[in-house]
């Protein structure tokens, strides 16, 4: 057993330990187990920075690889895990039972994500995806006294299972046509597989499964309902973790398993990303429910992420990573705020934010900054992220003029998004305050998370240099260089 699995193992052990500890913890102290989980995950995160494995190391005979890309995403997921666990504690008084189970489930999902980060084989793709999905069935319906939560759970259950079915069948077809499930081996063959319909069909079905995870058109239908219904921490994890897992798997499949096919699919990806952007932004425009709004916005964001993928270049991939990192802080801050603000009130209507700047300047600042960052306004992470994405696509435009149209669509999306994002800001500062006016108390861990998220947004916006370099270096394992060097063709 080599050391490359150490993070996954640590997380699993932590989860099991929590389950045991839960047996002896008196009811009123259970929420502290949540803190413990967060702390433990935090320690693992810090440890991951201390620990640097040799790049090529792998496990389960190359089914699982530990390359810089994997490490980048593992840290990403671990941070997300810490934040979500703390959001969960904030939220715990709204669970009838099983505060600890919630944390444990989060940890299991996290474990799945960690595996997904280094999946190098379709079997592991399937297993890790399932680990994530199945735990999310429970997480989404965790407020089992609230009908919306159950409904969200069921919808996610059916549609998730459906997407799994497609993925699995796709994998079956790929295996059938290539006789392999390992990425490298498939890559070795794809040169002459590109014209085999069955193979392409299988690949597409896998793509559908991943598209479902990142909520990209045409597999995005579930997102708004599930985002709205699920408990806020679960939604946060869904928005950040499972989307990121989908992205990393998409990158790996496209650029490691089937780079040759990936190039042929540029057009497809462009169409998907363009429509996703428009769909998400347009639907978000009339939206009043905050979590549903973020659901639609997360669809739009998926579209932006796909922009980077369509660039088919190292620049594109690294910008995807950068954007995702910014998105991490942004969205976590937003959901943390929502979790705290909606503590008393039922439902998450935008009006709940009225007078927030008086009730709690910190929350107001955090939510404002995250909205501004999502809208892509300097000096925050979102601005530089969008800048990188557009830049990479425009570079692609030099060989594929269609990219200019895609950029045009993206711009339209950005303009539209201004309205609803700034609308939220408006609601925070300038809607007449109807609701209660007492100050909101925030526990210091949540406060810490918020500050870290704000810091992250500003850091990525104001001094992106290190993260950019890190992402550039992380995506070197992906091989977009297997494409012909592009030439301007006007």
């Amino acid at each position, binding site marked *: 057993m080599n050391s490359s699995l150490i993070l996954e193992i640590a997380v699993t052990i932590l989860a099991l330990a929590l389950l045991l500890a839960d047996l002896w913890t008196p009811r009123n102290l259970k929420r502290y187990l949540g803190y413990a989980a967060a702390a433990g995950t935090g320690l693992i995160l810090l440890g991951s920075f201390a620990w640097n494995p040799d790049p090529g190391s792998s496990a389960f005979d190359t089914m699982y690889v530990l390359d810089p890309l994997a490490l980048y995403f593992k840290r990403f997921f671990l941070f997300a895990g810490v934040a979500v666990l703390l959001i969960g504690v904030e939220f715990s008084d709204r669970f009838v039972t099983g505060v600890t189970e919630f944390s444990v489930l989060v940890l299991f999902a996290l474990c799945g994500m960690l595996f997904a980060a280094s999946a190098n084989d379709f079997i592991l793709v399937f297993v890790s995806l399932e680990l994530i999905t199945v735990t999310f069935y429970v997480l989404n319906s965790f407020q089992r006294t609230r009908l919306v939560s159950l409904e969200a759970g069921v919808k996610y259950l059916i549609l998730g299972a459906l997407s799994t079915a497609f993925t699995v069948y796709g994998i079956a077809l790929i295996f059938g046509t290539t006789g392999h499930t390992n990425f490298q081996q498939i890559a070795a063959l794809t040169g002459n597989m590109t014209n085999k319909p069955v193979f392409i069909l299988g690949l597409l079905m896998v793509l559908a499964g991943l598209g479902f995870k990142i909520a990209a058109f045409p597999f995005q239908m579930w997102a708004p309902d599930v985002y709205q219904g699920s408990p806020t921490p679960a939604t946060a994890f869904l928005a950040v973790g499972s989307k990121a897992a989908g992205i990393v798997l998409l990158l790996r499949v496209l650029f490691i398993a089937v780079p040759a096919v990936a190039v042929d699919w540029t057009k497809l990806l462009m169409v998907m990303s363009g429509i996703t952007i428009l769909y998400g932004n347009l639907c978000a425009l009339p939206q009043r429910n905050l979590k549903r709004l973020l659901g639609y916005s997360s669809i739009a964001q998926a579209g932006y992420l796909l922009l980077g993928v369509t660039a088919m270049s190292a620049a594109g991939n690294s910008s995807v990573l950068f954007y995702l990192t910014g998105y991490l802080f942004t969205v976590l801050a937003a959901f943390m705020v929502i979790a705290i603000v909606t503590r008393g009130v039922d439902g998450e209507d935008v009006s709940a934010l009225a007078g927030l700047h008086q009730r709690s300047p910190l929350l107001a600042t955090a939510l404002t900054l995250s909205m501004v960052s999502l809208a892509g306004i300097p000096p925050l992470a979102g*601005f530089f992220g969008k800048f990188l994405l557009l830049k990479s696509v425009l570079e692609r435009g030099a060989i594929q003029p269609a990219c200019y149209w895609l950029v045009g669509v993206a*711009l339209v999306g950005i303009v539209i998004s201004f309205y609803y994002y700034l609308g939220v800001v*408006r609601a925070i500062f300038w809607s007449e305050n109807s609701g209660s006016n007492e100050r909101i108390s925030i526990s210091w861990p949540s406060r810490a998370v918020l500050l870290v998220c704000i810091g992250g947004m500003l850091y990525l916006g104001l001094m992106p240099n290190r993260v950019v370099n890190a992402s*550039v270096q992380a995506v070197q394992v992906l091989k977009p260089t297997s494409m012909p060097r592009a*030439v301007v063709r006007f």
Partner: protein
Amino acid sequence: MSPLTYILGWPLLGAALVALTPRNYRFVIRTVALFTTLVSMLLAVKMFVQFQTGIATPQFVQKVPWVESLGISYYVGVDGLNVGLVLMGAIVAFAATCMSWEIKTREKEFYFLLLTMISGILGAFASLDIFFLYFFHELALIPTFIMIGVWGRGEEKNYATFQITLYLTIGALLALVGLIVLYIQSGAQTFDMLELTRHIQANPLSVNAQNLIFPFLLFGFGILVSLWPFHTWAPLGYGSAPTPTAMLHAGVLKKFGLYGLLRLAFPLLPDAAHGWLNIIAILCLGNILYVGLVAIRQKQLHMLIGNSSVAHMGFIFLGLASLNLVGVTGAVVIMVAHGFLAALSFGLGGYLFQATGTFEMKEWGGLMKKMPFIGAAFVMAAMAGCGLPGFANFVGEVMVFFAAWKTFPVATIFALWGGLVIGAVYMLRAVRAVAHGPLPGKWAELTDAGLWRKVPFIILLGSLIIFGCVPRLLTDKIRPNAEEIVKMATRTAAPKIEPVTVGLGK
């Protein structure tokens, strides 16, 4: 540390302080804002005085690498083209902060946004790095929208906010795309303007690439400058904006588009630019004549001023389009002059609105009687607006006319008509309606501006007159760079046909 860093840093510092001050310490907030902008104004004046005339290379430069892998760096410095603009920006910024007394609600948020906007503006004009040029502009743009949306006035406020957001965001994004493509196509792997310029001079872009990029820049920047027919956002937007915002945006931030065209579009894409010159000349007539006529029809002062400020943009475009030393220099002079003028007239309009609570010109009349200072300032603003000698606008406009005659005789004739006749018509109508004529009884108790209220107007008028009487203060500084720009822009490049290879990734 370059003085420019301080000039744009002080307002930012002020913004931070305001953010940290409790909202009920109104006085502290105001003082902080006034003090920081005052300091940055004084620094700007000092810089302008110390600026060495006759050198084309940027001065007071400071360069800090930001993202090496993309060749982005925080790079500020001034040469002839932007030294005047930075000075003007700082002065207008202070004046606008002085005018902010009219804001009575949520001062904390307002001053925070105002100071952010100010430092964004100054940064945009001080930057020699394309990325930061855009970055700062965007930083200044967003507060504008919020300020109009929240502290704006008039029944059409919401529509105005929507419209200005729509137009300006689209304009900015188009420009951004153009800039990125320029960066990519140049293959210079740097956003540093000077290096990029050098690189492109060494190996010009292919004509196709230029033809691809130029429209993005022209229309992107054009929308930002309310180039006809993308101008309707401006009058309504300014009319609905709170006075300081209108002063800052109409006066300073709006010039960003022109600055971009002058700095990047024309010199770096000469071949494409030549194809567009005639169209620009026609569009700028749209500004001068069409918008001028619209201004004649306005019944409300803020709409009239707004339209007139749009009309003035036409002269600048004409100057740029004439692409010769005199024209370009004149254009830059107008940029500076119009900055003061727009701030002045919007400031006066705002003052009258505060005093009387209306913009309807038929409601007013004979206000000169009750407020001699404001009235006199208003008359002077109107005169400057219709290009009276002694005010800086005249210098620029006359230079533009002289320059444009050789390239676009017909356009020049129309522009002259627009500047001398139409301008006079609507400006004097305004004076006639506002300051002259019998005084309606209801304004009997109006009083003139007190000493402190006079300060911003005096500063702005002073600057207008100084540069109007001693234009060489500006023109001598501008000339060397204008020469460079013209040389590059009129270079008949033998465009390389063999394709530029674009590294996907490095």
